[in-house]
C-alpha cells in the first residue's frame, strides 16, 4: 500500500467540513474567488503548533460534528471554535497539539464558542492542488478532496504524510492563553475608509460608527450580513468593480455586508471601505445574533498590524 494514501477516515463529516489553505491567488481576473481559511488566525496557529509550513492544508470544521478514525500515527492541532474534541472519549485540550495513534477515534462536538474549528495535521493534508491551491470554493466547483469543490464526506480518506520519528516526538505545544481569542467578547471592527465612502452622507456615517450591528443568520463564507441602522448611499449602485477581502458593501436595503473569502470577484454595490483583515477573521468566528461595532482605522495602522501578523506566522 502506498503510505501517502493513508491518513484519516471520515466516519461523520458534520454539517460543513472543508479542506482549506491560504487561498488560490492569480485567477480573480477570470472570476475565481481566492477562497481559503475563513479565519487565518486560527488556521495559522494550527500549522505553527505542529511546526508546519504556514500554507499546509487543514480542515475547516464549521459547527463541528466531524468524527474521524486515524489510520496513521502522527500529531494534530486543534484551534479556532472550541469544538470540545474527544480522543477515544477523553477530552482534548483546545489550542494545543496532540499525538494520535493509528486506530484512534477523534470526535468533534458542537461549538461552545466560535463558528469554525481548524484541525491541522503534521505535514498538512495532501490533496492535488487545483490552480495552485486546495482551497474549496463549492460554488465554483474548485478544490477540496475531489478537486471539484465538494466538502468532506463520510467514507473519505484524508491522506497525510508519515512523520519522521523526530517530528512525531516534537514536544506538544499550546498557545499562550493571552493569544487565545474569546469569540464571545464584543468585537470592534477597524474600517479603512475608501472606495465609495463619499457616497455616504455625514449623518449616515455618524450613525454607522455609533451603533451596534447584529450578525444575520444568512451569513456564510461569501459574506456576513449585518442588521442595524440602515444606510442610504447616493447613488445606490455603481459600475461593477473588483472587491477586496473585508470590503463592506451596502445593497439597496441599507444593511451592510462584509465580504469574505468566497466573495464574488466583482460587484456593483457601493462600499464604505475595507476592514482590517485581522478583524474580518475575528468576525468570521462570531455566531449569528452577536453584535459588532465599527471604528475608523488608518491604512497605515491596518497595514502595520497585518504585516506584524504575517511576519509572526512566517507567511
Amino acid at each position, binding site marked *: 500500500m502506498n503510505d501517502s494514501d493513508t491518513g484519516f477516515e471520515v466516519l461523520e463529516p458534520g454539517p460543513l467540513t472543508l479542506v482549506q489553505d491560504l487561498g488560490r*491567488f*492569480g*485567477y*480573480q*481576473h*477570470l*472570476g*475565481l474567488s*481566492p477562497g481559503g481559511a475563513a479565519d487565518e488566525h486560527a488556521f495559522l496557529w494550527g500549522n505553527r503548533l505542529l511546526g508546519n509550513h504556514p500554507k499546509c492544508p487543514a480542515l475547516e470544521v464549521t459547527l463541528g460534528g466531524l468524527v474521524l478514525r486515524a489510520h496513521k500515527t502522527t500529531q494534530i492541532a486543534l484551534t479556532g471554535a472550541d469544538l470540545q474534541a474527544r480522543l477515544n472519549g477523553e477530552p482534548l485540550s483546545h489550542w494545543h497539539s496532540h499525538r494520535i495513534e493509528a486506530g484512534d477515534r477523534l470526535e468533534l462536538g458542537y461549538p461552545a464558542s466560535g463558528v469554525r474549528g481548524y484541525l491541522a495535521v503534521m505535514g498538512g493534508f495532501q490533496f492535488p492542488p*487545483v*490552480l495552485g491551491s486546495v482551497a474549496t470554493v463549492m*460554488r*465554483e*466547483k*474548485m478544490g477540496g478532496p475531489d478537486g471539484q469543490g465538494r466538502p468532506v464526506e463520510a467514507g473519505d480518506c484524508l491522506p497525510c504524510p508519515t512523520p519522521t520519528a523526530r517530528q512525531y516526538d516534537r514536544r506538544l505545544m499550546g498557545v499562550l492563553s493571552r493569544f487565545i481569542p474569546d469569540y464571545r467578547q464584543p468585537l470592534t471592527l477597524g474600517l*479603512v475608509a*475608501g*472606495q465609495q465612502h463619499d457616497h455616504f452622507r455625514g449623518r449616515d456615517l455618524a450613525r454607522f460608527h455609533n451603533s451596534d450591528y447584529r450578525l444575520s443568520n444568512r451569513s456564510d463564507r461569501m459574506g456576513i450580513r449585518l442588521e442595524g441602522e440602515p444606510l442610504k448611499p447616493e447613488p445606490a449602485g455603481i*459600475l*461593477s*468593480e*473588483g*472587491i*477586496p*477581502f*473585508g*470590503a463592506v458593501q451596502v445593497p439597496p436595503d441599507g444593511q451592510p455586508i462584509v465580504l469574505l473569502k468566497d466573495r*464574488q*470577484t*466583482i*460587484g456593483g454595490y457601493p462600499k464604505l*471601505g*475595507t*476592514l*482590517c*483583515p485581522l478583524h474580518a477573521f475575528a468576525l468570521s468566528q462570531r455566531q449569528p445574533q452577536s453584535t459588532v461595532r465599527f471604528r475608523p482605522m488608518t*491604512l*497605515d495602522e*491596518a*497595514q502595520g498590524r*497585518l*504585516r506584524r501578523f*504575517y*511576519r509572526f506566522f512566517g*507567511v
Partner: protein
Amino acid sequence: MALWHIENAGPEALILRFGERMDPQLLPVIRAATERLAALKEPAPGGDKPPAIRDLVPSYSTLLVCYDPVLNDFRSLSGQIRQCLRGLEQDLSDNRGGGRLVEIPVWYHPQVGPDLERVARHHGLSVEEVIRRHSQRDYPVYAIGFAPGFAYLGNLDPTLATPRLDSPRQTVPAGSVALAEQQTAVYPIATPGGWNLLGRTPMTLFDPDLEGLCPLSPGDTVRFVPISREQFLKAGGVEE
C-alpha cells in the same frame, strides 16, 4: 490629463480608476495597463521571491490590484505602478485596441433557450428577429466575474433590453446564452441565474484543465454566430 488615478482599497489592494461611466473607449486603456502590470504578477526569475502583485482584476472602468502587504505598502506600490504605466498613452496610439474577435456559435432554440419566445413576445418581435438583432452586433467584453469565465458583454440593441427574471433559476445549464437589461453573456458553468435564456453554445468558456482557462478577456470583442441543431450537436453541444 492623467488617464487614471490610484485609490486605496484596504490594506491588501488598491484600485486604479480610469473613468466613472461604462465606455468602450476605456477598455483598451485598462487592457494595456493590465498587460503592463502583469509583469509585476510574475515571480522574479530564478528566485523564490513571491511576486509583488497577487491578482489584477479589470472591470468596466477600474483595475483592482491585490498585493501582499508584507512585501509592499500602498505608497511604494503606487510609485512602482506609476513608473510601470509611464507612457501608456503612447502604447495606445501605436496599437489601438489589442483585443481579439471571438466568434461564439449559438443554437438559438426554445429547447435550449426557454425564454426566447417570451423575450420575442415582450418586444412584439418574431423569434427570428430577436435572433437577428442579437447576433448582428459585436459586443465588447467589459468584465469577467459573477462565476468563473462569466463575461459581461454590452451593449445590446436597445430594442432587446429585457428585465431579469423575477425569481432566478436554481440551475442554468453551462453554455446558456442569455440577456438581461442592456447586457448579454454566456453561462460558462452550471450556476443559479436570473438572466433570460435564448440558446446555447457548444463552446467551452471555462475549463480549469484548459490552458488559459477561459477564451475571453476584457477588451476582446464577441460575435454570436447562429448555428443549427445539427451543427450544435456535431460540435459537442449537449441538449439536456
